């Protein structure tokens, strides 16, 4: 299940709904990415996320398919925001369910590495000192390379 939307969402409510659907799964892992409140260039005022539809959605769907082929998941959900958001707000939510925890942990980890380095988004952070486009960190590319 994938949702790319400019609507704010609450990760806790999404997790509750996910666990209702995934009942019987045994293990549920969630990841939430929140807009940070401080960057090296100062306090963060806002974050802007840009997508290119339908390329963005198509790429995430392919990563979801890859995850479900690689791990025995009983449920999976990805939510990604676009547009303008404030510090503390959720940018991304990934939830995975499986009979045992290793599959759930690894699949969530894998999807986040995809989302950080290959998903078709561009991010601009506004701080006290101005606006800055943010590229993935070298650690993000290293993390992604673990799954090759």
């Amino acid at each position: 299940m994938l949702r790319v939307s400019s609507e704010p969402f609450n990760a806790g409510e999404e997790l509750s709904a996910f666990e209702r659907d995934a009942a019987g799964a045994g293990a549920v892992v969630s990841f939430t990415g929140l807009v940070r409140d401080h960057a090296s260039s100062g306090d963060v005022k806002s974050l802007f996320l840009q997508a290119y539809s339908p390329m963005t959605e198509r790429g995430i769907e392919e990563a979801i398919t890859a995850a479900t082929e690689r791990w025995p998941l009983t449920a999976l959900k990805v939510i990604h925001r676009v547009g303008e958001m404030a510090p503390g707000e959720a940018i991304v939510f990934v939830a995975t369910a499986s009979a045992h925890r290793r599959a759930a942990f690894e699949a969530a980890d894998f999807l986040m590495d995809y989302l950080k380095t290959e998903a078709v988004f561009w991010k601009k952070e506004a701080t006290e000192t101005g606006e800055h486009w943010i590229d993935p960190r070298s650690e993000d590319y290293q993390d992604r390379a673990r799954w090759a």
Partner: protein
Amino acid sequence: MAQILFFGRLMDVTGKAEETITLPDTVRDTSALRRWLDQDRGLQGALLEKTVRLAINNEIVADPHPVNDNDEIAFMPPVGGG
């Protein structure tokens, strides 16, 4: 008329998110398009960077790839969400 899209930092570099242009006769592939647009707008190589990928009609392509009027052509700097 081709639809040109500029994403991420290229939106700021070019001062616009999209524009509709008629491709000159000399511009028949993505490599030529990069050179022509970059020079025409005085962008000092911003569109020539290897990390900037081009997508034609929502599919990423490798240089040089044919371009035609009626194409939607996107200039995509490095991506990353989350």
